């Protein structure tokens, strides 16, 4: 079996979300993993430790999560598709280097299998408490992309897409997977290699002496040479000009750079954002949910329909950039919105902001279990006018 065939295990499998995520990465062409064990993301590292050597890749277990993400940035610059996987405390440790990946535009994928926080919290229990941290965890203004799977199949599919976005926009992409999806076992279908869409980073098209590593194309993304291609390459976490030279005292450079780093995501948001609308056409009440909560919400919406209530579901797959326009459109159509989350009120604030005057009911759940469909149904009924 060739290394490529070994990387894409075409066929039907029975996987956990963690394993599906690892296999998605391999199918996307990931050949480097900077690991550090942490519950409930350890299975991804374990799978990659076993699988990467089979496909000519490298698994390195680092000494902590700071080192893991730093190694991933290094591997990305050296030309490999690279990822790491962690959970709450490790995600916190990674934040400074996530900023570095944003600033140096290093394509990489970071998986956060979300457990209960803050601090050590509930390591073996699920949560959705890091969804704001995904966007705001590192200092400064920046944009990243964050995706959230609701099924094990999606854990596989979205990991491939995460790599594609990372390569296309030269940005860290996060997979925010609650620990229920991470540890849940379901059937996964892996398509043949030729049916998997793969995006690779743009290579420089200019002569070596004319290459400026941070000079963007029209889509605001600069082509990326890798170390050793022969291009002069200077990358820094300091504010830098298009040549990559530090410009720590230039107002204009700071304005131009930070704006572009944000705009390359904001202006491409329509291309990036993925949502799923179910039974929303005639809906009077919309449930906005993501991850495992979306599955409970789907059941609640069906129950509501059976009871004659016009409910619908807006499932968010992309959390960041936030699907503001999409939520606003739904908000215009419905009388009320219900947002169930496994936290004490996070993404609901974004929903409220986008929904403007449409009332939003928030349902909080902390400590492992998602909402029961009946609980969401109650809220739907409560919102029925």
């Amino acid at each position, binding site marked *: 079996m060739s290394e490529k065939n070994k990387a894409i295990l075409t066929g039907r499998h029975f996987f956990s979300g963690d394993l599906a995520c690892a296999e998605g990465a391999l199918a996307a062409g990931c050949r480097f993993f900077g*690991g*550090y*064990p*942490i*519950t409930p993301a*350890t299975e991804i*590292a*374990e799978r990659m*430790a*076993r699988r990467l*050597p089979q496909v000519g890749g490298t*698994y390195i*277990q*680092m*000494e*902590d999560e700071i080192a893991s993400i730093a190694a991933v940035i290094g591997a990305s610059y050296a030309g490999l598709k690279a990822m790491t996987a962690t959970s709450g*405390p490790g995600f916190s*440790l990674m934040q400074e280097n996530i900023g570095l990946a944003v600033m140096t535009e290093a394509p990489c994928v970071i998986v956060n299998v979300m457990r209960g926080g803050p*601090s*050590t919290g509930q390591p073996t229990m699920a949560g959705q408490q890091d969804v704001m941290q995904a966007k705001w965890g590192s200092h400064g203004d920046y944009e990243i992309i964050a995706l959230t799977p609701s099924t094990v199949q999606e854990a596989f599919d979205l990991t491939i897409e995460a790599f594609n976005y990372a390569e296309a926009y030269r940005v860290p992409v996060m997979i925010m997977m609650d620990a229920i999806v991470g540890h849940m076992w379901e059937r996964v279908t892996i398509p043949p290699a030729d049916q998997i869409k793969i995006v690779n980073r743009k290579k420089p098209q200019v002569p070596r002496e004319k290459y400026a590593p941070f000079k963007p194309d029209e889509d605001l993304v600069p082509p990326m040479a890798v170390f050793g291609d022969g291009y002069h390459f200077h990358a820094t976490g300091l504010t830098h000009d298009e040549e990559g030279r530090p410009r720590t005292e230039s107002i204009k450079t700071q304005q131009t750079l930070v704006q572009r780093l944000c705009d390359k995501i904001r202006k491409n948001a329509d291309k990036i954002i993925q949502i799923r609308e179910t039974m929303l056409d005639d809906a009077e009440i919309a449930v906005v949910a993501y991850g495992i909560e979306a599955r409970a919400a789907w059941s609640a919406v069906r129950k509501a329909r059976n009871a004659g209530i016009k409910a619908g579901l807006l499932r968010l797959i992309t959390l960041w950039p936030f699907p503001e326009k999409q939520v606003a459109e739904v908000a215009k159509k419905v009388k009320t919105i219900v947002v169930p989350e496994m936290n004490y009120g996070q993404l609901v604030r974004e929903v409220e902001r986008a929904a403007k005057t449409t009332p939003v009911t928030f349902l909080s759940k902390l400590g492992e279990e998602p909402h029961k469909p009946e609980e969401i149904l109650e809220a739907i009924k409560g919102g029925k006018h």
Partner: protein
Amino acid sequence: MITIKELTEKPELFTAGHRACAGCGPAIALRQIMKALRGPTIVTEATGCMEVVSTIYPYTAWNVPWVHTAFETAAANASGIEAALKVLKRKKRITHEHVDVIALAGDGGTYDIGIQALSGAAERGHDFLYVLYDNEGYMNTGIQRSGGTPLGASTTTSPAGTVIPGKTQHKKPIADIMVAHDIPYVATASIGYWQDLMAKVRKGLEVEGPAFLHVMAPCPRGWRSDTAKTMEISRLAVETCVFPLWEAVNGEYGLSPISKAIALKPDRKKPVEVYLKMQRRFAHLFQPKFQHIIKEIQDDTDKRWNRLLKKCNIPQVAVSKT
């Protein structure tokens, strides 16, 4: 040296009823350590097996003030406690002659994620005892390799397969790294030699300044060993010189009694094979294709042992042939 009779009269400060696995080496280590205290003591502990098993709701195994700190910061947290105690003592708000501080972490929390905090605390010279309970892997998360995992051991992130013979790197010489910090007391200890271990705990608490104690503590789950053989394996680690017992007082190395006896009578030094054979994490090494790893482990053990003898000013002896 303490006798068994005296030992039984000591209070149990790490109590029974915790949830450690059968044959857990670190739990035995903690019981021994906590019986060697000299007075009021505060324990700060990094995330790890012993933190988890000793504090499962609604119980605690700790009969001393105890705090769970972030994985990477046991030594930094201890620094803060110690510095505050100093102030309180200076202001005469504490009247005890001494309040001891113990920072406790496993090999993951020491070799890997915690070494920065440990090194910083040692450099600043805080007066505390750092205890590393070394079970040679991240056992709490399900047996991943650490900087303390030895060459050839199979873990879930250094799995032995048809090509790769388990972990391909050696164990980091952590205790020597701590000696290089020029702190007053560094020692290695084994639960298989409890009197030696307890004496070293006491010494570590008594010295002024940072002390570091490296305790070898087998994990039957991670080592895939017989739960009834934990003590035997602990002693074999010492008898094979895989884990010799020594102490460095103000940077001067000296062998502890059992290792000194082996140094003086090299025939007593056992081949590493007998130690490896008792642990299924090394089982793959006994296949013909990986046998050279066993030789490499033996050679490395001999190399380190001879280096240690030199540091202890003991004439180098011929390597025992296996």
